[in-house]
């Protein structure tokens, strides 16, 4: 078996260890004998390449870079991503890249940047003096189908642990939130929602190495990608995730200690 990971704008959209998600997907697939091809989807990539991918990964960008990306991602490239996501290609979009999928992003300074309008949500920066939402974040996955799949894999309610650092605030329309915030800010620090889930696309503010610490999400992406590609369910060999479990437990312990 073979998988192609499409990495959106690796040099422009890679602010906070976002490469961690690509490394995690590649390693977890390769450890199970699945051949992996990482395809960079950048400014000089022809739109046809965008059609080749089985799973999409997008990270965060600083405002200036975000603007370059959103301007480049128009026409045939935008259409390719739209088709892929609508057709069920799984993807993980962290930090700034969910803003690409929503209606628009209004940066702290400068003009509104139009997104693909694929997810019914909008993002705004409340201004250069507004506080950034920074810190460790914990949320329970509530998006129905994803939560069910993960519950089956884990035998427990799926809880994601990550780190958020964003100036922009996201407000959801008719798109399902990815989860409910247990600790941290989430989409906007107001309504308790975090991220969004649409078809098989996961959007979240939990940036960078989201997948290494939540390996069940990585496995769900690999499994879904293989199902979409080969049209037959594939069960993945379990891996030794002791270190990830320990990393999660250490963080839970730390956050509980802070609350007390």
């Amino acid at each position, binding site marked *: 078996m073979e998988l192609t990971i499409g990495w959106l704008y690796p040099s422009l959209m890679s602010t906070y260890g976002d490469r961690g998600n690509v490394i995690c997907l590649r390693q977890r697939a390769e450890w199970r004998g699945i051949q992996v091809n990482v395809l960079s989807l950048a400014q000089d990539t022809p739109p046809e390449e965008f059609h080749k991918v089985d799973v999409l990964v997008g990270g965060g960008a600083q405002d*200036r870079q975000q603007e370059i990306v959103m301007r480049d991602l128009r026409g045939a490239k935008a259409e390719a991503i739209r088709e892929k996501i609508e057709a069920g290609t799984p993807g993980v979009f962290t930090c700034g890249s969910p803003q690409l999928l929503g209606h628009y992003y209004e940066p702290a300074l400068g003009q509104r940047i139009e997104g693909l309008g694929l997810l019914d949500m909008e993002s705004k920066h409340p201004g250069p003096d507004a506080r950034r939402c920074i810190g460790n974040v914990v949320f329970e996955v509530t998006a129905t189908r994803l939560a069910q799949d993960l519950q089956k894999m884990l035998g427990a309610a799926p809880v994601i642990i990550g780190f958020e*650092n964003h100036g922009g605030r996201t407000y959801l329309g008719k798109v399902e939130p990815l989860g409910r915030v247990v600790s941290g800010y989430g989409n906007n620090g107001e309504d308790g929602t975090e991220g969004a889930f649409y078809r098989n696309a996961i959007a979240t503010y939990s940036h960078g190495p989201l997948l*290494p610490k939540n390996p069940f999400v990585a496995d769900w992406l690999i499994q879904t990608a293989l199902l979409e590609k080969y049209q037959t369910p594939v069960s993945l060999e379990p891996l030794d995730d002791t270190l990830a479990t320990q990393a999660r437990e250490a963080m839970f312990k730390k956050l509980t200690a802070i609350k007390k």
Partner: protein
Amino acid sequence: MRISFFDRFRLGVAVAVAKTVTALVRSLRLGAASVLPGEIARRLHPNLLQLLSRQVKHGVIFIAGTNGKTTTSLLLRTMLERQGWRIAHNAAGANLVNGLMTALLANTNLIGQLSADYAILEVDENILPKVLPSIQPKFILCLNLFRDQLDRYGEVDTISQRWKDAIAQLPKETVVILNGDDPTLSYLGQQLPQRVLSFGLSEPEAYLDEIPHAVDSIYCPRCGHSLDYQGVYLSHQGDFHCPSCGFEKSKLAIDSRKWPQILIGIYNKYNTLAAVLAAQEIGVDTDTLLDTIKNFHAAFGRSEELEVAGKKVRILLSKNPVALNETIRAVNQQRSNGGFSTTLMVLNDRTPDGTDVSWIWDVDTEKLVEKGGTVVVSGDRVYDMALRIRYSQAEGNVCKLIVKEDLQDAIATALEHTPTGETLHILPTYSAMLEVRGILTGRQIL
């Protein structure tokens, strides 16, 4: 500068109080008193920074940049002292306003008279523009600009723009010494009305095989087009030009091949060149410079070498992606003739380290792991570091990973795994470096 009687009186009071506090803090062993006296004095006299800095006989030298400030200022200080000058210096690395003030106060007597030929002040990149109006330095050294704790500082572009605006206001006589291999700084220098001297490398054999992942400015700072690199020495520093607007690297004022370097790592070559260029400008003779380089001892935790239980230990502060990538390169160069060596990585997430540890995924830890040997991990975020190393291990990789929550235990284990005659390399974040040193030397500093 003329100081009025009233000012002189207030200055005296402020200095006396601050000095008393320093003595108290030290005698009660509450710390090194590198910040508090400055804070108190500043409240007692708002213009203190200006009044003190103007008394420095030949002028103030600012050292700014993301990485290398402490090492460069210590080297420059040593060069100037060997020439016979008396130097005020914030040697403990306290580089915010209070730290600068405290360093100046340490060289001031009870009636507010400062005696120093030069003041070498490391300045945090964010406060540089804020202190330039009060302390007008004679020299400014800009070492580099990397992404470091973006949550605190914002983007590299924003910082360099603020630097440029502030420096451009200074007198024409100010000398700006900057890293010409860094596109952002090179561009900054090209816009200034002052005299600008650039240092950099002219050694294509030291080019990296590829541009590392953790890189910020590969875009032209003038027009935004992608830069063409003939080669890269470190992160985004190298030989570049813009194919669109013609912007290119500034002409270098120093030939890097003519100078040996302090310590290990290409970053220390840059630190050496920066200090040499400044010292030459001040009038230190070549023999003294060469001799200082040859006999240089590292500042604490910066490539510092210790001997513990009969084994050699080298501590290499690694506080951001560029620093860690570079220390890995330096460590690999040291161990190229054997795969048994041991590395200890200590990752903390306290305020001085930055609370977000995601940046470790931007580092090419694969390059450390592929050489084999043993990697011991520890620190507050020991499991995050362990995961990063685990995901760096490729099929058939022989590198051994050992996880130790307790730092003391981690150090002991790493020492056990270090064969006699080899060096244990310790790669800690900032607060971890202080802890490691505390354990290894049996005394706490700062």
